[in-house]
């Protein structure tokens, strides 16, 4: 509630927005390019444009949101950021923003993810963050989120909870979407010169909690572009979830008949969350966006194909969107000649050891 008021006031304050825009330019590397995927487009028979969040500082779109929240936390007088992380991307982003603003950072991370993502753990510690291992449940993202929230409830005085996706209690889903809409707004402007039609036929993004998709869609929701969110087969909150409440938000979650929330399973640690942000439920219910799934094998193939044709090693998360475009172009779901904007949410360096075992 304090956060909500603070965000409302900050978001309405041109000084705050200017400062944020300045930091995104000088520290994050915005605007990110909209790269024409020339060779893959030719192979697929569509025009594919990649919105390159993989080129941001720290290597994923997470930083857009974190810089915004850290600026807000500073404005609110907090001295510490608390965050959860799965693969470690949001944790690294949070540790980075904390270092930039001279705040301390405590990042909760499942013990199993700590083992799987040792390098990101080291990056966070290099940046001065405390990484707290979470030993409950499946010791992954869902448990880390629970533990981070528990910790925060007892430390709201001096600490700010820095949520990584369009999840959690109000105002987080809204606020995170607003901080990520820079992706969609930039892409929209870039399309105006990159495409003769100014607006693409399709806008595609991967969906875990759904922050990069929410930010991307926000730039195109008032256009004729068809919006497609691509989920992991084993973490498909929008496609296979049912209504529920978790971590303070009412949305769609994978759960059993008893209402026990299930563990998600995806090759992409960042999509390893059983729910999606409430805005995606809303867009789906309105028929404004559709949500589809791809499986792990398609994703690995997509990573390799994008690497070989465009010289871009995408994060496994982002490769979900690529995998869907490849499949949809092949089966005619995407008509030949379609124009497609795809948000490449992050780079794949973090996934190299995982891929090494798979290939």
């Amino acid at each position: 509630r304090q956060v909500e008021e603070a965000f409302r006031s900050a978001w309405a304050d041109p000084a705050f927005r200017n400062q944020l825009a300045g930091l995104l330019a000088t520290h994050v590397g915005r605007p990110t390019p909209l790269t024409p995927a020339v060779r893959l487009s030719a192979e697929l028979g569509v025009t594919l444009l990649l919105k390159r969040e993989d080129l941001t500082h720290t290597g994923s779109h997470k930083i857009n949101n974190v810089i915004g929240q850290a600026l807000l936390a500073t404005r609110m007088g907090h001295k510490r950021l608390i965050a959860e992380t799965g693969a470690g991307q949001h944790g690294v982003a949070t540790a980075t923003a904390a270092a930039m603003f001279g705040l301390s950072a405590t990042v909760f991370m499942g013990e199993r993810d700590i083992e799987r993502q040792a390098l990101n753990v080291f990056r966070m510690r290099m940046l001065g963050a405390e990484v707290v291992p979470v030993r409950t449940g499946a010791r992954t993202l869902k448990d880390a989120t629970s533990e981070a929230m528990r910790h925060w409830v007892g430390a709201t005085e001096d600490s700010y909870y820095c949520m990584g996706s369009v999840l959690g209690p109000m105002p987080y889903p809204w606020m995170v979407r607003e901080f990520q809409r820079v992706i969609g707004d930039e892409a929209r402007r870039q399309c105006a010169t990159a495409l003769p039609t100014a607006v693409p036929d399709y806008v595609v993004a991967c969906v875990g909690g759904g922050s990069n998709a929410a930010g991307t869609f926000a730039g195109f929701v008032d256009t004729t572009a068809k919006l497609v969110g691509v989920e992991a087969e084993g973490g498909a909150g929008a496609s296979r979830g049912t209504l529920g409440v978790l971590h303070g938000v009412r949305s769609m979650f994978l759960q059993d008949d008893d209402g026990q929330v299930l563990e998600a399973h995806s090759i992409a640690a960042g999509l390893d969350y059983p729910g999606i942000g409430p805005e995606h439920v809303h867009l789906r219910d309105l028929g404004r966006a559709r949500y589809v799934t791809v499986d792990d094998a398609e994703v690995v193939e997509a990573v390799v194909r994008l690497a070989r044709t465009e010289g871009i090693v995408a994060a496994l998360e982002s490769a979900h969107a690529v995998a869907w475009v490849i499949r949809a172009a092949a089966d005619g779901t995407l008509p030949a000649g379609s124009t497609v904007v795809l948000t490449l949410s992050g780079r794949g360096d973090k996934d190299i050891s995982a891929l090494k075992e798979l290939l």
Partner: protein
Amino acid sequence: MKLPSDHKILMPYLTGGAVADWTDHLRALIDAGADAIEIGLPFSDPTLDGATIQEATHAALTRGATLRGILTRVSEVAGTVPLVASTYANLVVRDRDFCGNLRDAGFDGLIVPDLPLEECAEFENQDLDLVLLASPATTDERLDEIARRSRGFVYAVTVMGTTGERETLAASAADLARRLTNRCELPVLLGFGISTPAQAAQAAQLADGVVIGAAIMRRVLDGAGPAELGAYLRSIREAMDEG
């Protein structure tokens, strides 16, 4: 629900299904002088519970505890003292008959710690008393609303944070208890962090009664049988009654 007004109220907590003989524990608590019992309905993600109750919840789910199974067992015991279910919003919102099923099994009240006040309306005035929670961070304005809308009693969370045993009773407890009792006709029970008889007696002085949760579940998880658990609760009861 009807709670006694002639003495300080003692409400122990038990996680449903955490161990095989949990209803024996439940009976032992009643026999040891419980005025009401809070029964936790296990949820996969107990975000507002501390380590002990998380562990108990995990144990219950691992043992295969289900809502239906717990309700069946509860109905065998119901009728002696008021029974209050506590669980998370996800279980509550997904089933239209949730409150009715609880009532049918013999529950008198329901606590949903992760249900915001703004979303309580649809569960109020049902067959069950919806017990609301207050914490030291709750503003006076909001306390007024909680005092007005809560049913059965008001659950006062004495420290910020999650459930669990603590060495000393937080100073914030006294302040919250005073603020609540001033504006509330319902009994005010203090919970979170009470484990020793001395703490219970001290807390009971501040309000109308206490909830003992993690301290009980720690003992259950460590293998305490019904008799041992009863003896522990009796020591609390005596300390409170002596005042």
